[in-house]
């Protein structure tokens, strides 16, 4: 997924190492390829964001919010959202 033209993040970009002890997309792609899921870093990112979208969509339903796909992308890419999901998943 290419960045929307003129897009400028107000909240910074989510980085795996800065926000949590996770891997970068290239590292993920390498690890997944080793495990038999052949992919490059772009695919890793697309799959990650797609998964996050699924979660975000359900969260929006719970809160009774209707979000456009553009706004959904902003939410999913927001480091605060990713950090929050990471925190909840870590506690599970």
């Amino acid at each position, binding site marked *: 997924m290419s960045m929307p033209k003129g897009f400028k993040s107000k909240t910074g970009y989510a980085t*795996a190492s800065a926000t*949590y*002890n*996770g*891997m970068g*997309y290239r*590292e*993920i792609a390498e*690890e*997944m390829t080793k*495990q038999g*899921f052949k992919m490059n870093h772009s695919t*890793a990112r697309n*799959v*990650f964001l*797609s*998964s*996050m979208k*699924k*979660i975000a969509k*359900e*969260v929006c*339903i*719970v*809160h*009774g919010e209707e979000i456009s796909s553009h706004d959904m992308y902003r939410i999913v890419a927001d480091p605060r959202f*990713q950090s929050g*999901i*990471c925190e*909840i*998943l*870590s*506690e*599970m």
Partner: protein
Amino acid sequence: MATPGMLDSYFKQVGNYNLLSREQEVELSQKIEKGDRSARDMMVNSNLRLAISIAKKYYRPGGNLEDLIQESNIGLMKAVDRFDWRRGFKFSTYATWWIRQSVSRFSMMNSSLVKVPSHTKSLYFKISRLTKEYNEEFGENPTDTELADLLGTTPSAIKTCKDTNPFGKEISIDAPIGGDSDSRSLKDVIPDDNATDIGSLIDREKISHVIRKCMSKLSAREEKILRLRFGISDISENSDQFKISNEEFELIVKGVE
């Protein structure tokens, strides 16, 4: 606590002891050096009036004069034990400093319910005096660093002393605000920064359920990527924990709506 009558009686009793001449002071001091207990008692008794006089200067309404006199007498006894007649000073000149020190320390230690070390109070005095002088000279208050340099201490010590305010008045946490007994007390309005907001806790629990439901719907590939990206334990190993029934999920969503 002594009654006023007892205090008057004490004053009368003290008045019966004659003041000492310089020669008598020297003579008694020499005897005290040799271990004469009666000479020591006489020296103390003859100067009790001085102790009372200094104690009265430190007395404030609401305070306890008996306690001040007692501390004053302790200071007097220290002075008697340490007086060196060879230096040629009058005993009262020497004793005054010991008595003042004893009474002022007692006053400082008992000026508030919260015990603040005397050196902190002393530092506070110095800060106040220096700030006043600095302000008069330069027309502005000195910074903590300047105060620290002038007083030979650290800026953090200055800041701590200022924040502590050893002479601040204590207030009860149960005292009603505004004096009305039916009004709220101080403890009712102090926020608990560590308290958990129930609303956000419930909200978080609901979102947690939703995420569990979503996780159970993700493919193995998506799940692995999420796990690697977030650096969390193997979700597939704990996949049973994420599974909730469709009915449970519907109930959660309906509950929120």
